[in-house]
């Protein structure tokens, strides 16, 4: 019979011998306490939140009683002298010092004396001055005076300038003199440290530049509210233009991507996509892009015919197929499996086009797309190119449709403006502007010659319009 049993009999649950002796009942008790779920809270939620949160994590406690038995710390009214003051100065002040047995090493000096830091100003003697430092604008007396002030105010030139009473001098004059003297002294003195060059560089002062800077600062300080408003407006405008430019650049990039199937043949040119389009189609669409020297003449001619044939022709002529570097994966693979899939949304359309060409009919595979019947390296490469060309063609078609739609809408708008706005002067100007746009559009549509001024990097309104019409142009060309 253990003591536990006795306790059981006597029903003394509350006092276990130790915590390990009787862990389960207390846990159970806890659980039962916890599981009292208040009404209105779903069971799942209650399990998650695990009961009401404790009101406070800190046990409330009263302020600790002061320990009255402990002996009070002894403080002593001690005299001290400050080493920061002059050597012979005997000013003795008093302060309260906590007397702890460990702090007997009080004689190390006044605690705050170490903060008495002084900046080192270069000194020169008469001989040095005569030899190197003479200046037609400065006498020795004035230079001495300046250096005295520099020493006194520790190179706070704003204060030095304020207290400078020798002569009317600008702060730039003072700084210039001080730094030029320092530089000269550093240069002529025998080298001491390795960082002499850095020291000299630190003491270099460009007076003209500084004066210019101050002038600009003053102008900035004295701006009138109108100027500030104008500035803000300009800034806003600039931001807007920049955003437009970005947007336009993005549009152009998309467009170029659409039209740059020729890139396949000339992979090196891919990087110059933004700086200037290189494809012959672009040449047709937007004559202001001027890389004609780089583009083979033949391509330009071919692009005038149908796009599809142009692709093939260009490939036949230009594609240096043997130059392709292929990376072979380890193990045995089917070459046709390396053919990339067209975009998921376009698989069917690509297939359809291929069927139109009479290709890949026998190999229709709805999972991995059409495959060439004899997938040799050359055939596969051609196949990939063809697939890409087809995708591009489809994209171009889509873009052309979109552009057509836009053009229609614009035309309608123009018509509307023309009808409404012939009356008032401002409106007529508006319509004139619109007319200009229109003429521009037609010019770019019909003309494939050079539009000189539009080659600027910043897209103008005109350029934008010409660009949006390019797909249409391409379509026309195809037709």
């Amino acid at each position, binding site marked *: 019979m253990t003591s536990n049993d006795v306790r059981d009999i006597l029903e003394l649950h509350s006092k276990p011998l130790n915590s390990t002796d009787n862990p389960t009942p207390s846990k159970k008790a806890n659980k039962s306490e916890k599981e009292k779920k208040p009404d209105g809270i779903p069971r799942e939620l209650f399990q998650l939140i695990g009961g009401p949160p404790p009101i406070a994590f800190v046990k409330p406690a009263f302020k600790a009683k002061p320990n009255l038995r402990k002996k009070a710390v002894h403080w002593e009214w001690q005299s001290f002298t400050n080493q920061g003051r002059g050597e012979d100065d005997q000013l003795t002040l008093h302060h309260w010092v906590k007397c702890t047995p460990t702090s007997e090493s009080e004689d190390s000096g006044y605690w*705050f004396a170490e903060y008495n830091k002084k900046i080192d100003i270069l000194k020169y003697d008469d001989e040095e001055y005569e030899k190197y430092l003479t200046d037609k604008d400065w006498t020795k007396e004035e230079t001495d005076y300046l250096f005295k002030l520099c020493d006194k105010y520790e190179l706070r030139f704003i204060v030095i300038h304020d207290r400078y009473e020798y002569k009317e001098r600008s702060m730039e004059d003072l700084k210039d003199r001080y730094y030029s003297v320092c530089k000269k002294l550093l240069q002529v003195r025998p080298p001491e440290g390795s960082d002499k060059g850095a020291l000299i560089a630190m003491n270099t002062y460009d007076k003209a530049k500084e004066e210019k800077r101050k002038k600009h600062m003053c102008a900035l300080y004295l701006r009138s509210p109108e100027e500030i408003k104008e500035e803000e407006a300009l800034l806003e405008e600039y931001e807007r233009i920049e955003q437009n430019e970005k947007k336009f650049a993005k549009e152009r990039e998309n467009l170029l991507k659409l039209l740059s199937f020729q890139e396949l043949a000339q992979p090196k040119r891919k990087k110059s996509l933004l700086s200037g389009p290189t494809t012959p189609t672009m040449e047709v669409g937007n004559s202001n892009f001027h890389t004609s020297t780089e583009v083979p003449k033949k391509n330009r001619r071919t692009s005038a015919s149908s796009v599809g044939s142009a692709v093939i022709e260009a490939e036949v002529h230009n594609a240096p197929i043997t130059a392709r570097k292929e990376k072979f994966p380890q193990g045995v693979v089917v070459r046709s499996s390396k053919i990339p899939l067209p975009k998921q949304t376009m698989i069917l359309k690509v297939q359809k086009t291929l069927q139109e060409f009479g290709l890949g009919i026998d190999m229709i595979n709805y999972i991995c797309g059409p495959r060439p019947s004899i997938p040799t390296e050359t055939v596969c490469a051609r196949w990939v190119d063809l697939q890409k060309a087809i995708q591009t063609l489809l994209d171009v078609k889509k873009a052309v449709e979109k552009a057509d739609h836009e053009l229609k809408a614009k035309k309608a708008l123009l018509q509307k403006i023309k009808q409404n706005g012939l009356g008032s002067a401002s409106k007529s100007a508006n319509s004139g502007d619109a007319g200009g746009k229109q003429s521009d559009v037609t010019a770019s549509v019909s003309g494939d010659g050079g539009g000189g001024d539009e080659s600027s990097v910043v897209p103008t309104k005109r350029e934008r319009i010409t660009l949006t019409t390019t797909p249409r142009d391409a379509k026309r060309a195809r037709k």
Partner: protein
Amino acid sequence: MATFGGDEVSALVLDVGSCWTRAGYAGEDTPKAVFPTSYGYIAEAETAAPNIDEDTIMKNVDSDAPKVQDWDALEKIWDHALDKRLQVDPTEHPLFVTEAAWNTREIREKLTEIAFEKYRVLAFYVAKNPVLSAFATGRPTAVVLDCGHSTTSCVPVVDGYVLKKGIYKQPVAGDFLSEQIMQQFQKLNINVEPHYLIAKKTVVEADQPAVVVYRDRPNTTESYHKYMQMRVIHEFKESVCQVFESTYNELVIAARPMKTFEFPDGFNTSFGVQRFDVPEILFNPPKFIMQPDRPSFDTKSMLGVHQMIYNSVSACDIDVRPLLLNNIILTGGTTLLPGFADRVNYELSMMLHGMKIKLHAPGNTIERKCSSWLGGSILASLGTFHQLWISRKEYEDQGAMIVEKKCE
């Protein structure tokens, strides 16, 4: 203790202002003694009277004035502060004294002389008010607008040094406003009877003549009467006057609620636009000043306080201007007028477009009134400061001129 950089050596800090004198121990947050910088004396004996009474002649010791007129009086003030109020032996303590930013070398030397010769202080230091005000708000660089009793001054402080070229000051401050209020009352036919003349008063309706029994005080001096009258005006100024927050606009102001003021004799009336008029002098002096009977007072040349700040900042180098504008400190009792800080902020932002302006006006009244004392208290209790004291030995070696060398 050392972690805070403080090391108290029981220095005394004495700030003799133009209206109030503050004295206390360095390291404390409020002066132990604050008393008027005025004293009374009996005419025949020309000695200071033990108590200010009706038969004493009131005299004000204006320490802001370019020349301290009355050194004896200043010594009396020091005596009172050290002996009567703080009750200390000055030979045991270092003494820290504040001064106006434009004090001349002669005054500083004289102060040093008095401190060492008469009071035989342990050590001495004199610092400029604006620097201390800047320190009191914890800034080494600031432009300090001090609108106190006799002088409004605007002083740029850079790294704890006053920039002398940027000091602007003019005698349009609290005292001047009180005089103008007095003139305004005369125009309104309001007679200001000080408390000491009133024996008995009865409650009357607003704007009704006072029903009052006067005391008979035949021997009262004129200066005492004026002094007591000014007390009433001060009360009026503190409780009724207000600065309009933006550009003065009579129509808008007329819509503001009136404030009632009861004079010591029981007469009471409400003030509407008038209570905005006089403080407006601080911002638009040429338009609002009623020509005072002060000799050689040039109304035209007076500037608004915002104009003073602007001029003061503009006189400094362009590189510190943004820093100064970011640290504009308002101090002095007159800046406690309601709306003062808002107005300064408004006017400055109208003048300085596109610059960041930040005002620092301590919300605590004591801090605003005693900021230079407070700065002195902080400075004199710093461990690193103790090397700057002028010691007796230094004074004996080099004479009073040492003050120019050591106290910048």
